[in-house]
């Protein structure tokens, strides 16, 4: 009997549900095991690695821009972004795309995963979550934060439109925040192997949500005693050509580094799944063929055996549970109304017990 394992997979069936109850994963047929491991297990590993790496990357990028700012504030601890922008960054403006990535990311299709079972080795070798991978993502975060911060702060010195007026701290920081949200969201599209329309909806929707929130939040004043730092900032920003020029430049430069890295890596150091993708790049998505064949039509042989099984036959008293013996005392059988016949010696034993007090017999 297995006493310890990394993962327990139980198969429910004629022997009952005890294995299922004791297992981490439960499947219905033994042949589903290939799908569980080679398809869903592999995808799950890939997705978890990408989601975790992306989370750290987006927060690192965001926080590092503030870190670079502290060098220029006399280390006084002045925040770069408005409080609400900062708080909602992880809640509204960058949350949904990574969820969609975690749900739908597929490096190769299900049928290819089963055709190349050696792809499973990438998980065994931990090739998507090694320190090397983490270092690459961290470098990318540092680079992107530097680009977003330096490009905007350097280019916003002095007048920024023909009226000669000057930006303040909150204008600059809102511009950096906008560039950052765009860069970090579009990064999802760069790192996805399979981009569904939900990816587009969530990436576009997150950027739109940021803009809508900025429009609303920058347009209100309250009577509370609070610093209305970003009042009207987004409208001031959008009234300058400079804003649009910067919005095109900064996310493009931020993502350029990752793009170059991916191009070089795919060419010189490809992962196995990338080679498999290339081998099968011209094949269209055969969706129905990925299904496990669970048809309801019976083949002639199966129809015959089904008909034979429908003939009147001796009903088995086995309940399907281990150690539940129908010949003696069966709890599950008695639940179903099947009682074992009384044994002669048992009847005699119980009859002789009538006058004795109830003493435990061990």
């Amino acid at each position, binding site marked *: 009997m297995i006493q310890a394992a990394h993962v327990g997979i139980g198969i429910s069936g004629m022997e009952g549900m005890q294995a299922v109850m004791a297992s981490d994963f439960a499947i219905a047929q033994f042949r589903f095991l290939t799908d569980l491991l080679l398809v869903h297990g592999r995808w799950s590993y890939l997705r978890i690695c990408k989601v975790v790496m992306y989370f750290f990357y987006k927060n690192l990028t965001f926080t590092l821009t503030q870190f670079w700012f502290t060098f220029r*504030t006399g280390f006084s601890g002045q925040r770069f972004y408005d409080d609400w922008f900062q708080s909602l960054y992880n809640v509204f403006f960058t949350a949904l795309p990574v969820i969609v990535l975690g749900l739908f990311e597929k490096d190769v299709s299900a049928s290819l995963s089963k055709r190349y079972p050696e792809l499973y080795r990438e998980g065994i070798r931990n090739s998507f979550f090694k320190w090397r991978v983490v270092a690459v993502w961290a470098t990318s975060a540092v680079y992107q934060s530097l680009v977003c911060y330096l490009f905007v702060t350097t280019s916003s*010195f*002095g007048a920024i439109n023909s009226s000669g007026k000057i930006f303040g701290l909150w204008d600059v*920081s809102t511009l950096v925040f906008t560039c950052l949200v765009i860069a970090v969201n579009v990064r999802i599209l760069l790192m996805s192997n*399979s981009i569904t329309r939900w990816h587009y909806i969530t990436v576009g929707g997150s950027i739109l949500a940021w803009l809508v929130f900025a429009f609303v939040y920058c347009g209100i004043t309250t009577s509370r005693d609070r610093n209305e730092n970003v009042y009207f900032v987004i409208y001031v920003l959008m009234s300058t050509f400079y804003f649009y020029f910067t919005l095109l430049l900064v996310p493009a430069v931020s993502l350029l580094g990752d793009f170059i890295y991916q191009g070089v890596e795919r060419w010189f150091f490809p992962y196995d799944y990338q080679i498999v993708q290339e081998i099968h790049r011209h094949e269209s998505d055969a969706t129905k063929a990925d299904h496990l064949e669970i048809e309801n039509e019976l083949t002639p042989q199966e129809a015959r055996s089904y008909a034979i099984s429908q003939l009147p036959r001796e009903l088995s008293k086995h309940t399907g549970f281990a150690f539940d013996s129908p010949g003696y005392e069966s709890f599950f059988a008695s639940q*179903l109304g099947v009682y074992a016949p009384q044994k002669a010696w048992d009847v005699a034993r119980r009859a002789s017990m009538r006058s004795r007090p109830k003493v435990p017999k061990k």
Partner: protein
Amino acid sequence: MSSNTASSSGGSGDSSAARKNSKRPKYSKFTQQELPACKPILTPGWVISTFLIVSVIFIPLGVISLFASQDVVEIVDRYDNDCIPAPARTNKVAFIQGDAPKACNRTLTVTKRMKQPIYVYYQLDNFYQNHRRYVKSRSDSQLRSPKFENQISACKPEDDAGGQPIVPCGLIAWSLFNDTYTLSRNNTPLAVNKKDIAWKSDKEHKFGNKVFPKNFQKGNLTGGATLNPDIPLSEQEDLIVWMRTAALPTFRKLYGKIETDLDNGDTIQVTLQNNYNTYSFSGKKKLVLSTTSWLGGKNDFLGIAYLTVGGICFFLALAFTIMYLVKPRRLGDPSYLSWNRNPGGGR
């Protein structure tokens, strides 16, 4: 009995009565993860064409931006050291805090024709308007409306004078820049228009037109300029410009604009009052005259950045082309699979 238990415990595909009622979940593309998807592969074609497209878009944008910035004419004059008379230069802080006359004359030469409007800025270096305690030392509700005059909690230590609230309160208003500049060209005065130097949103919404300065600069320490108590805050444009705190310790703020053209070779005489104390923290003060273009003042950064990135992308397109030719790899070559390259080992 056995068939009952078998169908309740087994999944679909059981080879008896269970086939009649399948437990298969309802099919949908979303739950079965079969949504139509775009599966991009970064083939050499895509990489090179992306780089080329980026360079084709960025290089003209860079040229446009750089031309816009190069068209701007800018004159910068640092005056904080020279405007202290020589005998007082050993103790500048004492001079600036004392009662000696602070008038100073400077001469600027125009090297290229400047078309109006020409913007006059003062630039401060090493002045941390982005310091945390400085930035929070203001009361925006007080600035908007006289009803909230007493909302001064964030303004310490410049919140009240003898029990009465200061309007506008806080360190930002208290440290208002107070150097003044009078310009003349060939002995005729040049008018400097000090209207419309602040952002319209600030003037109309952030600073109320019913709020008047009260108890301002009445303490022991004078931090900067005084304000005329008869002019509402929405028209005190110097204050409005100053209170839009700058992002970096080196910043410019708009002082006014000149609405006549300046020709090449003109000499501008500036009579300035060197009132503001930047000497206690080694700050610098500069006077800037600048024209603007549609993209703003003289800042080559955007143009150079676009050109550089466009150029780098073009160079990368060439480099990648050479790389793909020199070290070709057939797309989808199974010999690159790790189990074919080194069986048993791999990446």
